[in-house]
């Protein structure tokens, strides 16, 4: 060895593998405006589509007259439900087993619903033409309040299924009922409640909001009549699923459908489902023989494609008088809007709401969820969370606070007393999940120490006294939340989408000169897959991350996968990467053994090479091996160095965390200032600490937005309010608090590299933390629950009700 030979540490550093704060490779193009989004794609002869939308929330359509629009120069076609019926596409299946109108068929069921699709030479002409389409409506009574959906005299919304008593998830009890979903032990729960020393019951409304990605939804369809092939570019979080659905609907073989998701500007669940715009662009391309592009504007995005939440959660806890929780009972009234278009795995009509026992060892529980129709936009997607886990965590973390208040205990002590203990993992929850690993006590303790929790409570006590004496008009709130996520859908035994099992995949090809390409079934929307996936491969097979290309989104080249949402990319596809890489490594070991003339068992792996045990000078690097694999493989061995893995995880992963927020609230204006926010996340093995931190910052910012003001609201006539950035709260850097981040590491025992997923945790844990801080500020005055969003006027109203303005 001479002194030019790199040391082991230098070789390791050069790989930029797992654990390295590697800079995001995709940012080079994003920060220079060199990304390639759907709207950047321009094809010769391309047309533009735009929607005529309903001004009413519920109305019968008496007639549509498109003649004036068709007379406008540049308008090529106007599609209505009548045209789509010819292709059997006036309705389409949703991921939740319902049917949804593509274009209004006889009636409209929510404001801004798609009524007609105008196709024109350019988007300006299309925008002019939609104003010229005359639609005659006959207004119908509007149903906005989900609590009135099942009244005997409620308006009939879905005439297509009004007499159907069996839905996709069992019996329907009313024509506006979608499903009733039950989990757990009802008699056992009832009995525990009957025997309890203390019980609490509160209805927590998790309001309707929207994922609101920076880039809105868009599609570009190009049907080649000669070849009978359809190419579809779109903002798809799950391109392969789109291909399968498109094939099932259009009867075009999957091999002749090319779905391409180029760069995507954020998804957060908004881009999982299939929207009328996609279908109309496809149909319009088939009809006109030209490529057709459709791009949503911001108001269309906020008011029509996939809201999130809208859960009314009546939550009960039973406990002993010294604070041992003995049972939980939850009923959810779920407002799904006009169609059940939730993007959950098909068997889960309320997603993973049954994770609602949270981080606590609750012996028995029972959950019921009733889904109902209302005259609102469809959706119910998982906005930066795994299928309703945000709702579940909100319910339990608010309920814990309310119970602590009733018991006269500090909520942290109550949490500590009821945590699932480290030695209980793998832990079977009362509502049917097997938690993989955790050390909740340690994480909570670390968080308390970091913020100086005891001193904060002492300061709060002093401030409350000063407030009572009239010396200050500010109240201090301390919010705590402890969450357990459930991500990585998922084991095919639990999860499928329309029958497609939720595995994921990776194909790695090592090129002869030692660089590589990995193709994936997932699809990044800003998460940084190109950066982190390469790091996993770098560590597994010793090729520098910079020499590894990661490619996603093209269904012709990528192996089949279920896409990116629910923090599933690292738990599922990340595992597929490791497994594919290990296949390559196994073949490489055979080649190295052949070249070094030793038995495979006499070799050991060292960073980027196989070396003979005890003789580190005798080695073959992966780069050496790659060349040989192609050009001089051992006799009898197939040339090449590549592998594919399809990974069906044995279980979900369960990231967790402890968050603490300190807030100061001006009771005269209702303005809440976040003084401090501390977030400790445990996502198992940490692939890239810098990306984790970025994800935590983003997730917390969205949590702050949702908790403190972001909502999609309706007035009594079903008019959607707040569907523009004037009202929809998207915090800027000015409003966003400073984030303190921290971590513990509890690897997942069943994941090949122990990683659990992190992108959504901060959102899941952040929302209840903010809400708990606001609620905590007022708790000493006897307030048990103040509904979200906690915008200034609602906080002011709460203070008003408590008599603080006299």
């Amino acid at each position, binding site marked *: 060895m001479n002194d030019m030979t790199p040391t082991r540490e230098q070789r390791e550093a050069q790989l930029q593998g797992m654990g390295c704060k590697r800079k995001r490779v995709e940012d080079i193009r994003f920060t220079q405006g060199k990304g390639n989004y759907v709207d950047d794609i321009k094809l010769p002869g391309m047309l533009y589509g735009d929607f005529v939308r309903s001004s009413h929330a519920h109305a019968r359509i008496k007639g549509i007259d498109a003649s004036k629009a068709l007379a406008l120069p540049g308008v090529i076609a106007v599609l209505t439900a009548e045209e789509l019926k010819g292709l059997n596409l006036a309705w389409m299946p949703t991921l939740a087993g319902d049917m949804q109108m593509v274009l209004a068929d006889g009636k409209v069921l929510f404001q801004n619903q798609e009524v007609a699709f105008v196709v024109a030479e350019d988007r300006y002409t299309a*925008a002019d033409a939609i104003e010229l389409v005359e639609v005659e409506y006959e207004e119908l009574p509007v149903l906005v309040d989900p609590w009135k959906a099942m009244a005997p005299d409620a308006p009939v919304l879905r005439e297509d299924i009004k007499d159907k008593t069996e839905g996709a998830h069992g019996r329907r009890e009313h024509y506006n009922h979608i499903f009733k979903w039950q989990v757990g032990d009802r008699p056992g729960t009832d009995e525990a409640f009957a025997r309890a020393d203390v019980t609490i019951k509160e209805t927590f409304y998790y309001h309707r909001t929207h994922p609101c990605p920076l880039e809105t939804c868009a599609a570009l369809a190009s049907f080649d009549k000669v070849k009978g092939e359809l190419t579809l570019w779109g903002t798809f979080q799950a391109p392969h699923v789109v291909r399968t659905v498109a094939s099932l609907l259009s009867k075009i073989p999957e091999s002749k459908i090319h779905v391409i998701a180029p760069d995507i500007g954020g998804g957060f669940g908004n881009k999982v489902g299939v929207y009328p715009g996609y279908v109309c662009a496809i149909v319009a391309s088939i009809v006109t023989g030209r490529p057709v592009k459709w791009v949503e*504007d911001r*108001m269309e995005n906020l008011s029509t494609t996939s809201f999130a939440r809208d859960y009314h959660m009546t939550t009960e806890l039973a406990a002993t008088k010294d604070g041992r929780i003995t049972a939980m009972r939850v009923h959810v009234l779920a407002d799904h809007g006009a169609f059940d278009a939730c993007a959950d795995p098909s068997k889960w009509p309320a997603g993973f709401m049954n994770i609602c026992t949270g981080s606590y060892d609750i012996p028995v529980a029972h959950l019921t969820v009733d889904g109902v129709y209302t005259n609102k936009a469809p959706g119910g997607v998982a906005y930066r969370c795994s299928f309703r886990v945000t709702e579940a965590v909100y319910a339990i973390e608010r309920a814990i606070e309310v119970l602590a208040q009733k018991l006269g205990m500090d909520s942290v002590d109550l949490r500590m007393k009821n945590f699932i203990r480290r030695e209980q993992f793998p832990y079977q929850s009362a509502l049917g999940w097997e938690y993989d690993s955790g050390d909740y006590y340690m994480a909570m303790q670390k968080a308390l120490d970091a913020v100086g929790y005891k001193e904060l409570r002492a300061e709060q006590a002093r401030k409350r006294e000063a407030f009572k004496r009239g010396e200050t008009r500010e109240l201090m709130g301390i919010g705590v939340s402890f969450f357990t996520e459930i991500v990585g859908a998922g084991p095919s035994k639990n999860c499928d989408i329309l029958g497609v099992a939720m595995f994921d995949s990776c194909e790695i090809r090592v090129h002869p000169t030692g660089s590589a390409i990995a193709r994936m079934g997932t699809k990044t929307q800003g998460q940084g897959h190109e950066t982190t996936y390469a790091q996993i491969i770098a560590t597994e097979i010793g090729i520098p991350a910079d020499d590894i290309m990661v490619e996603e989104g093209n269904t012709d080249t990528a192996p089949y996968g279920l896409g990116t949402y629910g923090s599933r990319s690292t738990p599922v596809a990340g595992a597929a990467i490791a497994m594919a890489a290990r296949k390559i490594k196994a073949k490489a070991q055979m080649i190295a053994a052949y070249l070094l003339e030793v038995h495979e068992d006499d070799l050991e792996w060292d960073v980027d090479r196989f070396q003979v045990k005890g003789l580190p000078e005798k080695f073959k690097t992966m780069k050496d091996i790659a060349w040989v694999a192609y050009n001089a493989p051992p006799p009898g061995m197939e040339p090449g160095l590549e592998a594919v893995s399809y990974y069906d995880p044995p279980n979900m992963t369960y990231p967790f965390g402890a968050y603490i927020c300190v807030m100061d609230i001006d009771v005269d204006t209702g303005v809440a200032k976040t003084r401090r926010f501390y977030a400790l996340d445990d996502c198992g093995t940490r692939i890239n600490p810098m990306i984790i931190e970025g994800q935590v910052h983003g997730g917390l910012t969205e949590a702050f937005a949702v908790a403190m*003001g972001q909502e999609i609201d309706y007035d009594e006539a079903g008019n959607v309010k*707040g569907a523009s950035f*004037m009202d929809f709260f998207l915090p800027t850097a*000015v409003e966003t608090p400073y984030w303190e981040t921290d971590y513990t590491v509890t690897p997942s025992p069943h994941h090949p590299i122990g990683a659990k997923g992190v992108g959504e945790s901060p959102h899941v844990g952040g929302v209840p933390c903010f809400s708990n801080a606001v609620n905590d500020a007022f708790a000493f005055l006897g307030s048990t629950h103040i509904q979200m969003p906690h*915008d200034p*006027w609602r906080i*002011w109203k709460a203070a008003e009700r408590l008599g603080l303005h006299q």
Partner: protein
Amino acid sequence: MIPGQFAYHRPSSIEQAVRLLADLGDEARPLAGGHSLIPMMKLRMAAPEHLIDLGGIADLKGIRDRGASIIIGAMTTQNELIHSDLLAAKLPIIRETSLLIADPQIRYVGTLGGNVANGDPGNDMPALMMCLDAAYHVAGPSGNRTIKARDFYEGAYFTALQEGEIVTSVEIPVPPAGHGYAYEKLKRKIGDYATAAAAVVLSFSGGKVATCAIGLTNVSETPLLAEEAAEILIGTALDPASIAKAVSAAEAITAPASDGRGPADYRTKMAGVMLSRALQRAARRAAA
């Protein structure tokens, strides 16, 4: 979010602009910074067939010292207001208010003239101009005239401007040295219009309020001049009881809309809170 079709004109003098407006009639609209007008056009709530861009008219620019008053050209941007040393010295409340309008990007193009002529009660400058007793110099088909800010606002998007008239400049009397001032604005986030806002300019003499003017933003169809509230304070030491009385008088003239910023009762109360805070801050800044 795509406006209807329109033709674009860029005159280089006030006369040309006025003539174009007269010739093209009510299908023509002046365009200043475009940050109120163009969003309305994108929503198709406004669909002018002709835009007369005032951006090429040098005479509409600039801030001039007239001793007892300051004249600001209509096309002066909000950013220029923020960076004027003259205004900082003589009318610091303009800078304070400008900094609370929208965000830096919008302030680079949004103009004072557009802000006061727009007629939206959400704009911050109108109530301030009423508070300062500013006058708008106007040019139109039948010549030039001057309209007091306090007489200008008639309803939401209705002003005293006649068809074809443009605001050419805004003239503001300089308040006495040693005056106290404050603009207090409650908003949900950067770039938001006021939930409620209050402008206060006052002066003291011998420990008592000698002069006081109060403007209120976005709590009625028009910006408001709270005359009675100001009257109540004259001669007082701005003690809590007097402030409370003035606040009640100011609240009484509000009639806000219920919107995403909050229900009407909340916004009325916020007008009161903003006023009370503005009074106290103005008092701290004033010479005794």
